């Protein structure tokens, strides 16, 4: 009997007949996300006449694109059976380190490099505590979340640090009419989608998340895979932090505050299974758009922010209930 995690709810019918092909394709959490996305677009249009404007939605997406990029990697971490709540704080700390260095006269490319390296180091600390010391990732990353943001506050105080004019405005760069951060998000999604869905490494991530013991018996180096994933989250979070610095033109310790909720929400809404072993990049990709549609739809309709909190919290709960339900119905 495995004592790793609470066992997933098992389906009652072990010998059920093979499901029809349309069910295999359509009865998936991602389908739910897609349907919600379409409903969200209609609801947004009904709530406010100013909502359905492609360039506005794209501009709004840039505000969430940094979180969305991290959420894509976080999806892979969750599939591997771990979680990381620290990347939003990581974004703040690496951006603060970057901004502080360039203010102290370090050339921008070097400052960016150190910022990215510090992101990697934060990922490495998480990995050390989770893999090396065998501590649960959820509590470790709650601790490092507090620590990283606290260190950012030590570096930057309550001040904001400016970045040079020429570095500002990544969101104003257009590629074929689409803001660069959105393009980057799509590219990262494509790359990670291929890695997760089409490579041996990707398949091993699923196996580690389904049963780490079985994966190890099958010769998969579970620890190494998790290490790579934690480092990747750290690196992408640092990149996202520096992108945010370019978008805002200044850095403060509270950059991305509360972003961990949004990132987890994107992964969960996209049908990633919280106990590991299931989920897709496509799901998180769709969920990121869903979240942006829902948030901006409510903001542009001047809906109270309180209602947004309620809707986001309810969406999170409903999406895991639905995901669990779908997974327990389809075979294990």
């Amino acid at each position, binding site marked *: 009997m495995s004592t790793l995690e609470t066992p997933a709810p098992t389906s009652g019918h072990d010998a059920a007949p093979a499901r029809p092909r349309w069910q295999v394709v359509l009865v998936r959490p991602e389908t739910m996300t897609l349907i919600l996305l379409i409903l969200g677009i209609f609801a947004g249009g009904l709530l406010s006449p100013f909502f359905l404007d492609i360039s506005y939605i794209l501009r709004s997406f840039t505000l969430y694109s940094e979180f969305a990029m991290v959420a894509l990697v976080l999806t892979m971490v969750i599939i591997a059976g771990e979680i990381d709540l620290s990347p939003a704080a990581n974004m703040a700390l690496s951006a603060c380190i970057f901004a502080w260095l360039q203010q102290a006269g370090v050339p921008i490319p070097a400052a960016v490099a150190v910022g990215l390296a510090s992101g990697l180091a934060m990922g490495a600390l998480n990995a050390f505590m989770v893999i090396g010391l065998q501590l649960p990732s959820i509590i470790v990353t709650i601790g490092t979340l507090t620590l990283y943001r*606290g260190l950012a506050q030590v570096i930057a105080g309550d001040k904001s640090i400016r970045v040079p004019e020429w570095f500002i405005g990544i969101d104003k760069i257009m590629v074929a009419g689409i803001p660069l951060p959105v393009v980057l998000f799509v590219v990262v999604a494509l790359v990670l989608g291929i890695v997760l869905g089409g490579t041996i490494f990707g398949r091993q991530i699923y196996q580690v998340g389904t049963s780490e013991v079985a994966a190890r018996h099958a010769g998969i180096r579970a620890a190494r895979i998790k290490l790579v994933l934690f480092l990747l989250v750290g690196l992408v979070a640092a990149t996202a932090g520096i992108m945010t610095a370019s978008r805002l033109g200044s850095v403060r310790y509270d950059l991305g505050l509360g972003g961990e909720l949004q990132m987890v929400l994107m992964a969960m809404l996209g049908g990633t299974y919280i106990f590991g072993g299931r989920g897709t990049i496509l799901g998180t990709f769709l969920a990121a758009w869903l979240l942006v549609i829902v948030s901006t739809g409510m903001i542009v309709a001047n809906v109270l922010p309180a209602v947004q909190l309620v809707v986001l919290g309810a969406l999170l709960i409903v999406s895991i209930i639905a995901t669990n339900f779908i997974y327990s119905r389809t075979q294990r």
Partner: protein
Amino acid sequence: MNALRSILLRREAGIAVMIVLFCLAVGAFKPQFLTLDQLRIILLLTPLIMIAAMGQMMVIVARHVDLSIGSILGFSAMVSGMLYRFDIDWFGFDVPWWTGIPLSIAVGAVLGLINGLLIQLFRLPAIIVTLGTLSLYRGMTFIISNAKQIDRQWIPSELKGLSQTSPILGIPWIIFIAFGVALLAYVFLNHTRVGRQIYAIGSNPTAAPLRGIKVTQVTLLVFTISGALAGLAGILYASRWGFVNPSNTGSGFEFQVIAAVVIGGVSINGGVGTVLGTVLGVLLLGCVAAALPLLGIPGTSQAAIYGAVILIALVIDRTVRRQGIVGLRRVRA
């Protein structure tokens, strides 16, 4: 000799030693830290955290976690605050000052029960459910209050008096309430069957039902208690600070409480943890919070220190469990 050794090697002894060393170190720089007056300040910083920590401790012992307590605190404080504010409009008379206490506890219990039901009926992970209800309950606090603060003038002075007046020795009521809750938690966990069952569920969730433990009922009870205690902390927030704000009241509270519980030696893997350890963990946090301004350490370093303390406590906890007393000795050396 052996009895002394076994006391000294217990986890609680380690925290107690840390508290003493910390206080002596601060006292070396600022002698006024080692006065009765300062003890009063430290104790007054901790009652809300201590009360909620008792509930959180039970949740963690049962191998769950409750991230929503800060929002439960805010919501239940707001319900009582609105009762004080609008009682004449609603009922045509002034409600007695103590009405808010049972009301907040009941409201908190209901919200905690909702957490438990979602977790137990749908077999969902507590961390995600309570992350969702953290946002949900906070949003509801804004909605019921129409985003308006309950000002000091509406909080009954008898209620505020709980944090200021004292039955004995100049120690305010609120501190007695906190230690009373801790005492009840101790009796409940150590001397009742249900209390022991919480430990059994946490140490081995799969074996617990085989031993005839009603896991669902006990888990629901644990979350209800956690919510009820967060509700009690909510009405005491109104007493201590004299206002209820929809956005500030209770926000970030969950991190302080979880930090205190983890520092107090409650294992996040479930099944392990004592009331004494949790009380000491709360007091250690209180000492740190009171010492920082006295030493002139800027508030901006506070979060980093908290984060570091949590991680160190985790590492110590892991070392102790893996290597027993030897590990503890090695860490201390």
